[in-house]
């Protein structure tokens, strides 16, 4: 199995995940992981599906596998923050999001989850700052989406 073929499996998995067909997506990710356990993206993608299906402990484990394979994997840190938030481990989630943002400061989702967790911890000023950054990035995303729509 070549890396191109693994990439094909991940692509199919992603296509199913976008359409919320998580069972099918998981089947492709599982297959990809059985063939290429050293692929951090495959762990990350499976973690994303685990989160959507309320399997947060498993999502956390997968994020940690992805990060172990690539310490600078910003999306995996961000997803780890999300899993930790769902597990109500707010302090740990803030740490994971901070790490994600150090690697990619333009991750609107990580800023938002950080804000939400800080809010839960009663750190209001810090939460407002994180929400502010998240909103700025989200608005830019929204404007890009509008432009695409107009283009279509």
């Amino acid at each position, binding site marked *: 199995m070549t890396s191109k073929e693994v990439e094909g499996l991940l692509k199919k998995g992603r296509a199913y995940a976008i359409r919320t067909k998580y069972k099918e997506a998981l089947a492709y990710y599982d297959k990809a992981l059985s063939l290429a356990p050293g692929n951090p993206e495959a762990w990350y993608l499976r973690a994303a599906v685990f989160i959507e299906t309320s399997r947060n402990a498993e999502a956390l484990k997968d994020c940690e596998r992805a990060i172990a394979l690539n310490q600078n994997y910003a999306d995996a840190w961000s997803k780890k923050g999300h899993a930790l938030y769902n597990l109500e481990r707010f302090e740990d989630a803030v740490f994971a999001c901070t790490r994600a943002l150090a690697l990619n400061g333009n991750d609107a989702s990580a800023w938002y989850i950080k*804000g939400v967790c800080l809010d839960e911890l009663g750190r209001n000023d810090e939460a407002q700052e994180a929400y502010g950054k998240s909103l700025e990035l*989200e608005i830019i995303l929204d404007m890009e989406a509008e432009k695409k729509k107009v283009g279509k």
Partner: protein
Amino acid sequence: MKTEMPLSKPIRLFVKQTEDILDTEISLLRNPDADPNGTLVDIYTFNIERNVIIFPAHYIGLLKDFIIAKHCVNLLIKGAAVKKSQYLVCSFTGDSVYQGIHQIYLDALKDEAKKEKKLPVQKLIQMLNILYSDFNDDINELPWNPITNARVYHKMPKIRKTQLYYLMKEGKMDMDEMMEFEDIIPRRYFVLNKAMFYARDQYLAKTLPADQLMPVVNIPQMKKFNHLEVKEMLTTRWTHTSWYQSKVFGDTMLEIMEKYLQKIDWNAEPSLDYYHEIYQIGVNMTNHFISYMSMKGWFVWESPKHLQQAREKKAEYEFDALKKIFGDLIEKSEINGDVKP
């Protein structure tokens, strides 16, 4: 509520409160093709088991939260109406469609008399139908918009900047509505349509204190409004359109809006009674708008189910109305023809 989406604390609590007050369940759904305003599919309107709030997939943070908050207020108003009395909407019947279309036709004739280039019959027919439907949609939505916005503003201070962005965006969309029909719609209706949105924008500009809604200056879209207050932002935009004449009607509509909405205590503790009172105020305000726009008889207050069934029969109602107006001159093919403005 069951969701794996992160939600900011005030929104999470508000969704929970909504569910508790109404004794119902709310699901959240992300959809790439969702309407930018989000959609509320509720048990009071549709024959379904639980309420669903749908929003665009790229709304991942506070934009999503704002949409959820807004629709929770809508849901509370509908639910309170159902539980305390009856939830009614502006629906239509064959007779009311005739009254509306006939009035638009008479006004169109007056406009057409002044035009050198007359509107082809098919375009005229299409315009009558579209305009009637648009006013039906707007009258069912617009009066509730300032209510939900004001309530969200007072209830959730943490998402006010998001609300500001959203209002600017929504205002722009509403301002652009119908522009492609500019040349064919009777002036009176174009002005009335814009006036409704003008009134909404002005009311919100007055209601939402500017000091807390200062623009987020780092956002490119907001930069041109730097140093302006919210009221100035919304006013500046309206005064720079060709529809400035909407101001005359819009100011009267604003007075109507203020007359009714000043009765609401925006900071009151939420309860079924509170939201039911808001519902009744919204209904009275809607009636006043209908009367001001001389559209009495155009719509009937009926159940949401009645409106759904009326929409299914819309083509039939329109054909019958046109037949009454044009007599045998009208053929079904003329109505169904693929006519573009």
